[in-house]
């Protein structure tokens, strides 16, 4: 009950502010002292100091940092402080995308479907995640537009969590694309890999023509008719909307690189199971990889050649690497674990930490706002009980824009960290998706 009151109050505060970001702004300064601060933008700082105010970071450094008068003091001695984790691929919030009417749905917005009250967002908070790219599934060549969310305190509609200002006018996420076996189905879906690529190329050529047509008729009266599908792809062609591309096998990854070269869009390889086989080609193309870290090979033919050394191999080749949860393929509470096991398998600690923070922020085009602890950036951070790569370490606190959104010492929050009866409720839709998943039907 108390929880509800607090949420309602924070909504009132949010609602009173113009624009969406930073929604939870507050004037009171907070200073966090004593922790090992890992800013990502620079080397770790022992007995570091972090000062935040108005939802932003105002200073990061050693004990020499002077806090503003009247700042609220937080003693984090013995703790580790990291930027809030950025999950560049997740399905939290009961998101949906396109339907069976077509394999291509560039006009469908994931943000129109997300349940902001879904308990899956608590799983993310408990895992230290503060920014998340929520994506529709991979059963289409284009299943729809993804949305970049900030898990702010409170929030009544998805507008309260957006990075963009207004979904009616702004680009608020990426474009989910997929190739390989997931989207091979009966017509109107493609039946082969080559047909998949042909359908995608055809649509991008239409989008190129649309861009030219719109430019030619910019001042015409009446204005050119809008096409929501091609409009979204025009944003992709303009580099404003990043393609988030599900792909596993080496030849499918090569197809992604080929399409990227032809149309010049910004693309992130999502999953990239066999990307270790094409590390040099991917590095040469300057394309980043967001890895879903799986514990064992298989589950489908495309994921048989999974390697736990993927992070290390891509790092050595100079590829920008991130880890994602693909929740609920892996659990949002365990995102740190993906990086830890990659360190076990040869990745540097520095690259593994960046792969949870600044690297995925770059992959969403949000590196100016999140991903590192630097003055001027959003005050999003995580307090850990110890070494980020130890299994015995817990996420103690998660802060977003200067507000505590998850606190393990609060039993109401802690239950989301461990689970149990009545903790994670599911909708009928989620139950069905889970059943299909567990029976190997995939998605």
């Amino acid at each position, binding site marked *: 009950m108390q929880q509800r009151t607090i949420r309602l109050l924070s909504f009132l505060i949010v609602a009173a502010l113009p624009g969406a970001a930073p929604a939870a702004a507050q004037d009171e300064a907070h200073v966090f002292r004593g922790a090992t601060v890992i800013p990502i933008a620079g080397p770790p700082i022992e007995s570091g100091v972090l000062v935040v105010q108005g939802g932003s970071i105002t200073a990061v450094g050693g004990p020499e940092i002077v806090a503003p008068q009247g700042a609220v003091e937080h003693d984090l001695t013995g703790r580790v402080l990291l930027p809030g984790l950025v999950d560049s691929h997740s399905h939290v919030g009961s998101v949906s995308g396109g339907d069976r009417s077509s394999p291509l749905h560039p006009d469908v917005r994931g943000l129109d479907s997300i349940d902001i009250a879904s308990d899956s967002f608590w799983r993310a908070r408990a895992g230290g995640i503060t920014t998340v790219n929520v994506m529709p599934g991979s059963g289409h060549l284009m299943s729809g537009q993804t949305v970049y969310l900030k898990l702010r305190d409170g929030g009544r509609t998805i507008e309260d969590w957006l990075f963009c200002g207004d979904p009616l006018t702004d680009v608020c996420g990426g474009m989910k694309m997929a190739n390989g076996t997931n989207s091979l189905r009966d017509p109107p879906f493609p039946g082969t890999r080559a047909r998949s690529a042909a359908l995608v190329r055809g649509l991008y050529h239409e989008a190129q023509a649309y861009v030219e047509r719109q430019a030619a008729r910019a001042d015409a009266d009446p204005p050119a008719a809008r096409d929501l599908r091609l409009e979204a792809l025009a944003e992709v062609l303009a580099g404003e909307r990043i393609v988030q591309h599900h792909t596993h096998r080496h030849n499918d990854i090569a197809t992604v690189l080929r399409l990227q070269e032809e149309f010049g869009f910004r693309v992130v390889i999502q999953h990239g199971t066999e990307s270790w086989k094409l590390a040099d080609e991917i590095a040469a193309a300057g394309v980043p990889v967001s890895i879903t870290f*799986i*514990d*064992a*090979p*298989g*589950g*489908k*033919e495309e*994921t*048989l*050649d*999974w*390697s*736990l*050394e993927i992070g290390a191999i891509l790092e050595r080749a100079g590829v920008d690497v991130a880890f994602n949860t693909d929740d*609920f*393929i892996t*659990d949002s509470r*365990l995102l740190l*674990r993906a990086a*830890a*096991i990659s*360190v*076990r*398998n040869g990745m540097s600690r520095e690259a593994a930490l960046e792969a949870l923070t600044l690297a995925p922020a770059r992959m969403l085009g949000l590196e100016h706002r999140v991903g590192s602890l630097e003055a001027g950036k959003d005050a999003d951070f995580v307090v850990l009980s110890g070494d980020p*790569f*130890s*299994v*015995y370490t*817990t996420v103690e606190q998660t802060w977003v824009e200067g507000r505590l959104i998850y606190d393990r010492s609060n039993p109401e929050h802690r239950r989301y*960290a*461990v*689970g*149990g*009866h*009545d*903790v*994670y*409720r*599911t909708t009928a839709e989620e139950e069905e998706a*889970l*059943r299909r*998943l*567990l*029976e*190997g*039907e*995939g998605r």
Partner: protein
Amino acid sequence: MNGRASHRRRIALHRITLAVVLVAGAAAPAAAQVAVRAGTLHTVSGPPMEDAVVIAGADGRIEWVGPASEADIPAGVEVLEAVVVTPGLVDAHSVVGLSGALNSDAGQVRDQDQLDRTAPIQPELRAVDAYDATETLVEWVRSYGVTTLHTGHGPGALISGQTMIVKTRGRNVEEATVAPARMLAATLGRAVASNFESPGTSSKGVAMLRAALIDAQAYRDRAQRAAGGGADAPEPPARDLAQEALVRALERELSLLVTANTATEIAAALRLQREFGFDLVLDGAAEAYLLLDEIRAAGVPVVVHPPMSRVRTGSFETAARLDEAGIPFAIQTGFEGYVPKTRVLLWEAAIAAANGLGRERALEAVTLGAARILGVDGRVGSVEVGKDADLVLFDGDPFEYTTHVCGVVIESEVLSRECR
């Protein structure tokens, strides 16, 4: 790099293996004597020992265990060294070897043999007739320390078939087998309804199981009366493989491994056990924390679901709660329908260790604790003289994410030496 073998390669290997077996027969490769020196040795049966040596004999058994200072290692015997050494891990429930990495249910290459959907009750299905010792996933789980695997038919049917116990080595099922039949795999709840026309509800499923067990009682009684002879003795019943398997459960030769996750399903399993008196092992048991008193009173062990599996009501702390309640339990890797196709026991136990169970208890849950529930603790699960020389070598705390498995020994045979 392991686990990269393409499917075609796997098939090719399989053919070669078959050829070798035909020539060489079923004899397991002879193990050489080997010694392992441990910075810390977790015997599990006793307190950890610092700087200890285990001598594994040529017969595949542990010959000697003690402080390195007192070890008398015969000349010429290879000595392996590791920071930490534990017994070989025992996975209390898996479908690896029946369920393969490809996850293909149809076509020329199908590797999903853990569930037959033609009938909801098929206790006659033997795991030995399906286990593929050369499956990619067997090598995968071994490389992360599993040396003994309780595997077989999976969840999803009222009774899907039998389970068996194998070592994660051998070129074929004969070489791998420890116990060819150990339990009958049963499932309660709505999960069964999606695989069969009937049962369509949880209670119908229980009714069908009760009817089957009552039929088996009648079959057993008639067979016993027939065997007793005398004037009133009936004709012996025609041989019925399904009834025979159920009778073995009623006679407590095979346990009933009942997958039951909700409190309702767990209560139904306990009720069935009370009615028929079989040896019940609760499997999954996501909501066991709601019925700790009842489970303890029934004296039933629990093979808890992998902590990281996608069981919505599951908790990272279930293993710790079972332990606090004094209920015998083990941790399993279970069944996954998608990715990953199998879970890694070590990493599942690590989550339990970090969520209230602690290192020592978590280690016991995947070694001696599991061996006891499986009834093979006379042979595996701890480092003791006379037991199988199954050992795992680590370069640190076994459960830490950044620790490597640097060697696996099964019955004195060194099966891997690289750190991974």
